[in-house]
C-alpha cells in the first residue's frame, strides 16, 4: 500500500444494528452525557489487540450479526464477542483471529449463535470524527456517530507501528446460564435482605433490553416497612447499577445509562462482569451471585 492510499470499509448491509464504539466518553456526566462505549469492552479490547491496535481504537459493535462490509484497499481485521460464523467472500473464517482482507473482498458475519454483540476491529481503527473525545455512539444522549447504514464508507485510520504477534486467541464458549456477581449498592437497606432476594430469584431478561439497560422479570423485591413510599432525589448512576423501580423488578444499567436516576440502587455489578451483561438476550435466564 502506498502512503496516502485510502483504506475503508464499505457497508453493504449493517444487519439489525451496527454501531461505531470505542471505550467511551468519560468526563461529561455532569452535563448530561454518559460514558457509552462498547457494551462488551473486553471483546472490543481483544479484537483490537489481535490487530495490534491501541485497545481503545474504535471498532464496530454488531447486534446479532448480519453485517456485510467490502474492503476498500487491503485491511486487517479481527472479530470477537458473541460467537457466530463469518466469511470472506465464500470462505469461512474464524473468530478471534487475524484476518487479512484483500481490497474488494466482502467480510460477512452470520447470525450469532449465542450472546448478542459481536465486535469487528480493523487495524488502524474506524476513523470517524471524535465527538467530545470519543468515537462512540451514545444512543441515549444522541451523541457520537449515527448508527452504521448501507452505503456508508467507514474510513480506516493509519495503521499502528506494531504488528500482530499472534494469529488467534483461544476463547471459552460463553456459559449457557449467566451469573451476575454483585455487591451491595447505596440503597440496599431500603429492601428486605435484598442481596439474598436477588440470589434466590429466577430472573429472566425482558425484551425491553438495550444498551441503556437490561430489564429483568422475576419475584418482586419488596421494600422494608420503613422505606415503603420513600422518595429518592435523583442521584448519579454507574453502569452495572441494579435499580429497583416501584414494581420491584430490577433494572441493570448498561453503558448508555442515564447519568442520574431516581429509584434506589440496591446492588452493583462487579466490573469484570460488565461484558456478560452486554451479551444476555431477551428470554435468557440470569442469576445473581455474591460478587
Amino acid at each position, binding site marked *: 500500500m502506498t502512503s496516502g492510499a485510502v483504506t475503508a470499509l464499505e457497508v453493504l448491509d449493517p444487519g439489525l444494528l451496527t454501531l461505531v464504539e470505542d471505550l467511551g466518553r*468519560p*468526563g*461529561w*456526566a*455532569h*452535563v*448530561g*452525557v454518559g*460514558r457509552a462505549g462498547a457494551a462488551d469492552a473486553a471483546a472490543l479490547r481483544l479484537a483490537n489487540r489481535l490487530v495490534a491496535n491501541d485497545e481503545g481504537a474504535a471498532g464496530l459493535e454488531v447486534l446479532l450479526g448480519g453485517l456485510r462490509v467490502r474492503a476498500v484497499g487491503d485491511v486487517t481485521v479481527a472479530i470477537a464477542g458473541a460467537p457466530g460464523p463469518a466469511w470472506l467472500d465464500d470462505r469461512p473464517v474464524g473468530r478471534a483471529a487475524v484476518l487479512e482482507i484483500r481490497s474488494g473482498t466482502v467480510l460477512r458475519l452470520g447470525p450469532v449463535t449465542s450472546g448478542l454483540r459481536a465486535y469487528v476491529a480493523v487495524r488502524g481503527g474506524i476513523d470517524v470524527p471524535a*465527538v*467530545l473525545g470519543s468515537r462512540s455512539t451514545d444512543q441515549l*444522549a*444522541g*451523541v457520537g456517530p449515527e448508527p452504521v447504514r448501507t452505503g456508508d464508507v467507514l474510513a480506516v485510520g493509519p495503521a499502528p507501528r506494531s504488528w500482530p504477534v499472534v494469529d488467534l486467541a483461544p476463547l471459552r464458549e460463553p456459559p449457557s446460564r449467566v451469573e451476575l456477581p454483585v*455487591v*451491595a*449498592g*447505596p440503597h440496599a437497606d431500603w429492601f428486605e435482605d435484598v442481596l439474598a432476594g436477588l440470589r434466590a430469584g429466577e430472573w429472566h431478561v425482558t425484551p425491553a433490553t438495550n444498551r441503556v439497560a437490561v430489564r429483568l422479570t422475576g419475584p418482586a423485591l419488596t421494600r422494608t416497612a420503613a422505606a415503603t413510599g420513600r422518595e429518592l*432525589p*435523583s*442521584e*448519579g*448512576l*454507574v453502569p*452495572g*447499577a441494579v435499580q429497583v423501580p416501584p414494581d420491584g423488578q430490577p433494572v441493570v444499567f448498561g453503558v448508555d445509562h*442515564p*447519568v*442520574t436516576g431516581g429509584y434506589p*440502587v440496591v446492588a*452493583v*455489578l*462487579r*466490573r469484570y462482569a460488565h461484558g456478560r451483561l452486554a451479551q444476555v438476550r431477551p428470554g435468557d435466564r440470569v442469576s445473581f451471585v455474591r460478587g
Partner: protein
Amino acid sequence: MTDARAPRVVPYGDDAVLVELAGLAEVRALDDAVRAARAWDPDAAVVVDQVPAARTLLLRVREGADPRGLPVERWWAGRSAPAAEAERPEVVLAVDYDGPDLAEVARLTRLTADEVVARHTGARYTVAFGGFMAGFAYLVGLDPALRVPRLDSPRERVPAGSVAIADEFSAVYPAATPGGWRLLGRCEETLFDVDRDPPALLQPGTRVRFTSS
C-alpha cells in the same frame, strides 16, 4: 469538633463512591473542591467523572483505581466558602415569554401573567446539577411563589429552547424531547453544542438570569 454536615461516603461498586451530603449548598461546595483538587492533588487525579445531584456527589475513578481511597474528608475540610459565588460565570438568557403554560401557571400561582414573568426574570439562578439529557441544567433560585407541580401527563414533544419551571427548579430544554415541566417561554440560545468549548452553556455552578425579550 464533629461536623454535623460532614459527608458520608457510600461504596458504589468497583469504580465509584457516592458521597451523601446535607443539601444542594454542600453538594456545590464539595463538587467545586474536588474539581479544583483534580488540577493539583495527585489523589484526585484518578477521578474521571463527578456527578452532582440534589443531595449527593458521585465520584467515578479510572479503571483499576480504588475509589475507597479517595480522601473525601480532606477535600471537604479544604472547601472554599461560598463567597466565591460572585466570581462564577453568569449567563443571561433572553426569553420570549409566550409559553403554552404561562396562563395556567398564573392561575395556579394566583398571579397575573406579567407578574409571573416579573418574578421569573427577577430571580438569580444557579445551576445545581445536570442530568436528564445532554446540556439540561437544573436551576435553583426560583421565586417560591412560582413553585408549581409538573404536568399530570408529560407532553410528547417540548420544543428546543423551551424555558420551563417545575417544583423548585427552572430549566431550558436543550433539544426537543418529551417533558413534563410547565413552559413559560422560549429562548434562542444554543444550550448544548458538541463543537463548542465548553459544549454545555450551563454547567454546575454557572449563574443564570432571564430577561424578557
